[in-house]
């Protein structure tokens, strides 16, 4: 099981400070909700935690490895093997069918101990999309696309799942289904980090961090 430690993390664009002084640690089993109004930097923070965006200050340490000290191969391996990312804007490839989008991470993972297609179909089935496997993104509703995005993040069974507003645009049933799937990871010893402005969803997390000024603090 993986551990995550964040030290003094901050991000500035052209001298304009967006986030600063963010420090916390996450242990297996933790589910941490980041709560703040829209446009306040949650996505930026999650991108830095998922090693998709370099920080201006501070560092992210994953299983004892300082991400700032890692080269491209090691960073790529961490992104591939340790993190699963659910993007706020789903980020599906328009020319791939739903099941192919879910399978996409397998293309870069080498030989897998399981059948990627079978796993993708299971995940989509579990999220209520068994009858949408062969649909292209333009044929899916926003809620369905979000569920495909969740399934993709879980394909390689990552120990840390990062989800940016995972239940946005979902109806109550779908929202509950997606949330259950994500929290199940934490319950099974993984780490779930997610951003939301949905207080009900945040209340299901084991820890909640709120934005205060330009930093997130746990309350």
């Amino acid at each position: 099981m993986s551990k995550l430690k964040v030290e003094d993390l901050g991000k500035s664009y052209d001298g304009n400070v967006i986030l600063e002084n963010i420090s916390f640690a996450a242990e297996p089993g933790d589910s941490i909700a980041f709560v703040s109004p829209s446009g306040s930097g949650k996505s930026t923070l999650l991108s830095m935690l998922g090693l998709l965006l370099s920080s201006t200050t501070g560092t992210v340490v994953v299983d004892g490895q300082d991400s700032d000290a890692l080269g491209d191969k090691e960073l790529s391996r961490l992104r591939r093997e340790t993190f699963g990312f659910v993007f706020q804007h789903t980020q599906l490839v328009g020319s791939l069918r739903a099941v192919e989008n879910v399978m996409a991470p397998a293309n870069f993972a080498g030989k897998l101990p399981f059948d990627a297609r079978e796993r993708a179909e299971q995940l989509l089935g579990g999220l209520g999309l068994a009858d949408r496997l062969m649909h292209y993104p333009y044929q899916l509703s926003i809620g369905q696309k979000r569920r495909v995005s969740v399934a993709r993040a879980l394909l390689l069974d990552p120990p840390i799942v990062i989800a940016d507003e995972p239940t946005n645009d979902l109806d109550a049933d779908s929202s509950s289904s997606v949330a259950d799937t994500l929290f199940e990871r934490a319950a099974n010893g993984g780490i779930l980090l997610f951003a939301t402005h949905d207080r009900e969803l945040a209340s299901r997390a084991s820890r909640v961090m709120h934005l205060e000024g330009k930093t997130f603090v746990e309350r």
Partner: protein
Amino acid sequence: MRRLLAHSLKMRKVLTASVVLAVAVSVMALFALGLTYGGVQQGVRASAERGGAQIMVVPRDAAADVSDTALLFTGAPAPVYFPVSTAEAIGEVEGVGRATTQFFSQTLNESCCSTAGATRLIGVDFARDWTVQPFSGRDLSVGLADDEVILGADVGGDVGDRLSLLGRTFTIVEKLEPSGADLDDSLLLAIDTARSLSEENLGLSYLWDKYGAPGDLVSCVLADLDGTADASVVLNRINALDGVYAFQRPEVVEASQKQLETVFLILLGAGVLMLASTLVQLFARFYSCVWERKSELALYRAMGASKGQLRALIGGEVAAIVGAGLVSGLACGAGLYVVLMDLLQDGSAFPFISPDPGETGALAAVLAAAFALLALAAIAAPLAQIGRLDPSLAMQQGDID
């Protein structure tokens, strides 16, 4: 990743097909032009280097109907003759060093002999000849027996085979190397054998009625200048003799090469402009193929693809496209080359030697390397830029829903 690569090509069918076509057309044009140019150059060079004689003397009747270039490269392909005495007189002209004679017997057709590809029968004075020798590995100065024949490079048959020719049987004693000229389609006999064969041919009796007994005739004289003799003076002296026309080989070779170079310069100029335009388009297309997909590629980076894996993915796509274009372009180029050569050989007297497999392979390899480099150059910059961008920033733009 192969599945993703195949999918990517399949999903961009029109783009893929158009780039393959653009590469194929460029490669086809360059390959065909390169082979044609190389073949003609090699033919002219071989003719110039190995043709031997500096001066060629033909019957004035033949010169009236045929250009110097044709005479130079094809000899005197007409049944017109002048007396041996005139040939001997040419040999004694002041300024002429060595001289040898040839006897054009006749044009051959399919019924004349038991081999394919022979169109002319020529008698050669091997004891004094130095013009055929460069195309042979054996000493031809010892001459040929009455029943021995030498084949040009394109005539069917092998050394040691028996050949039936105009009612007589001959043994093939030599097969010449390619000259690029009509020598390649010729059967060579000892000059006296060719004369006697012609004399036996009743269909040619009208010629002997006109010119006299073939034993006293020759078709052309090939001569070299003696040391420092002035060529123009020697030519004037020969041309003063009755019934003959002499011309200087180097001048004709030079003129032919200039003609050839001019034609190819024009073709090359047009080709280079067309090629430059195509290369710029290809570069832009390959470049945009990568840059327009930066959000997709950044997404793959977010999923854990390393820069090396992205390079392999894009490189594989480009290799597949360039490879398909190259293979089809080379195949079509070879076909176009055959058509061009047929046209050139039918329409001109330029000698031609097909480039050997090594040269053909080298040209294909150069083309493959050039297009591979072009593609690499086109994808290197956008791939490097995408690699430098944080995945989350790159993902914010493009064709990702």
